């Protein structure tokens, strides 16, 4: 790494940021990383040492939605991220240089930061034919393998890079695979979502930048700080679920009064993501709040998990038992529904079938 690079603390002070400003910055950083406020002193100490790491962003079979999502981040904003936090040395959508000059920038960053740069990937990698996706004449597999060789870690942004996503949906016409299917000798952090919440992308980047370590991950390689609870368990509409009050169509009394969208197919109970607390676009709203059920976009193979408007088939009479509401509600329907998802996924993948309670009973 370039030894002339200033630490973040130095850079902020040079820009006239006061100690109160720095504390504010650390407070916002803790909040963004979904860390408790008690972590602020540790963050402050770590940021004094943090340098702008080189980040190489590779785009494969993707739709640029993940980059668009990153551009919606406000804490830090994309402009602050680019100017103050990371050195974004290769990123097709944002970088000025094209063609050979772009590839030269990637190679220069890899060379100058050997063993220390981060690779971010959005999009899946097609293994069906190397010609299905190429950049500068190289297959995505070649580019990925060459670029991660000297990386310290890889962040797979979006459900396509994390789990294969839409290209991998049945019948997977191009043989698409995820980053972790290929990269097995480096840490891979999965940041799924279609797209991921902007604050989650920047939160994971900030975690690495601040502490120089990877956050704690779940069994799908997702940071627990953001993917530790189901949408359902943190949903503000959960009390209506517990009382058995549901919207039955998209414009009935229940829909208008904000009752539970479970019967309209909401996948909140089997989806682990931070939408219910982080919300979207600076806390403006999020899918359930706006009136459409969660489609489960942070889960592996969610495209093949049954229709978006088919209710998860749990007999609702038995689950409207919890009259009281607690912020950290425990298992309940989330665990049941997750089990359904696991057991019926393969069948659903093959047939795009609706998952019903009868299906479950047959097994």
């Amino acid at each position, binding site marked *: 790494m370039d030894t002339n690079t200033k630490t973040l603390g130095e850079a902020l002070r040079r820009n006239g940021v006061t100690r109160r400003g720095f504390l504010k910055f650390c*407070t916002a950083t803790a909040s963004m990383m979904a860390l408790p406020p008690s972590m602020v002193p540790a963050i402050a100490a770590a940021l004094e040492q943090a340098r702008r790491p080189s980040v190489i962003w590779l785009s494969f079979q993707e739709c640029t939605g993940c980059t668009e999502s990153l551009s919606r981040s406000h804490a830090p904003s994309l402009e602050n991220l680019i100017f103050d936090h990371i050195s974004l040395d290769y990123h097709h959508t944002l970088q000025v240089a094209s063609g050979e000059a772009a590839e030269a920038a990637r190679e220069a960053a890899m060379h100058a930061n050997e063993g220390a740069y981060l690779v971010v990937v959005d999009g899946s990698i097609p293994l069906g034919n190397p010609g299905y996706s190429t950049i500068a004449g190289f297959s995505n597999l070649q580019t990925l393998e060459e670029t991660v060789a000297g990386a310290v870690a890889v962040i797979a942004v979006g459900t396509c890079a994390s789990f294969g996503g839409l290209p991998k949906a049945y019948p997977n016409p191009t043989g698409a695979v995820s980053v972790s299917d290929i990269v097995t000798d480096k840490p891979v952090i999965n940041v799924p979502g279609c797209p991921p919440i902007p604050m989650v992308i920047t939160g994971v980047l900030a975690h690495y930048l601040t502490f120089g370590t990877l956050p704690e991950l779940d069994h799908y390689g997702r940071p627990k700080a953001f993917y530790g609870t189901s949408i359902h368990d943190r949903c503000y509409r959960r009390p209506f679920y517990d009382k058995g009050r549901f919207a039955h169509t998209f414009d009935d009394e229940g829909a208008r009064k904000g009752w539970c969208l479970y019967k309209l197919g909401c996948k909140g109970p089997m989806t682990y993501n931070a939408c219910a607390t982080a919300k979207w676009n600076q*806390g403006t709203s999020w899918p359930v709040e706006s009136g459409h059920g969660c489609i489960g976009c942070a889960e592996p193979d969610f495209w093949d998990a049954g229709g978006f408007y088919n209710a998860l088939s749990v007999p609702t009479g038995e689950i409207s038992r919890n009259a009281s*509401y607690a912020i950290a509600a425990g298992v309940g329907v989330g665990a049941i529904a997750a089990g359904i998802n696991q057991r019926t996924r393969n069948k659903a993948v093959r047939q795009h079938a609706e998952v019903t309670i009868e299906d479950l009973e047959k097994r």
Partner: protein
Amino acid sequence: MNALKSIPVLVEAPATRDFCYQNTLPLLHEISHALRRLQQEQLPTTIDLNAIPFGPGDEQRLLEFLGRGEVSAHLEALGNSSVWESGYPGIWFIEHRNESGERVAFQMEITTLPAILATHPDDIAESLSSLQKALENPSLGHRIGD
């Protein structure tokens, strides 16, 4: 906006204390426990309001319930921040915004004085030395003579 104002029904800010999504009530209980800890053990508590799964209108209801007290402060560093004591002394709100005015953090502190308002010891040391310099050469002092 004219068209909007002509809507006959205004639903903003219902004056009731009906916490319809029920996330405000448990939070208020937690605050009261924190206040007790502060009173009995002098232990301050910080709550990150961004981590609370508020429903629409919940935050506003919480703010209305707690009201505003006699202290409010304004901080200008990396954008504006507001700090104010609620109508219940010892319960403070701290709202940080970035240079574009977007909220980057929103916290409650149950404490005697929020940490960000207190002057940092290093700032006091720097302050003393620069004041002494200014007294040696009054033309340097940017506050003297105001």
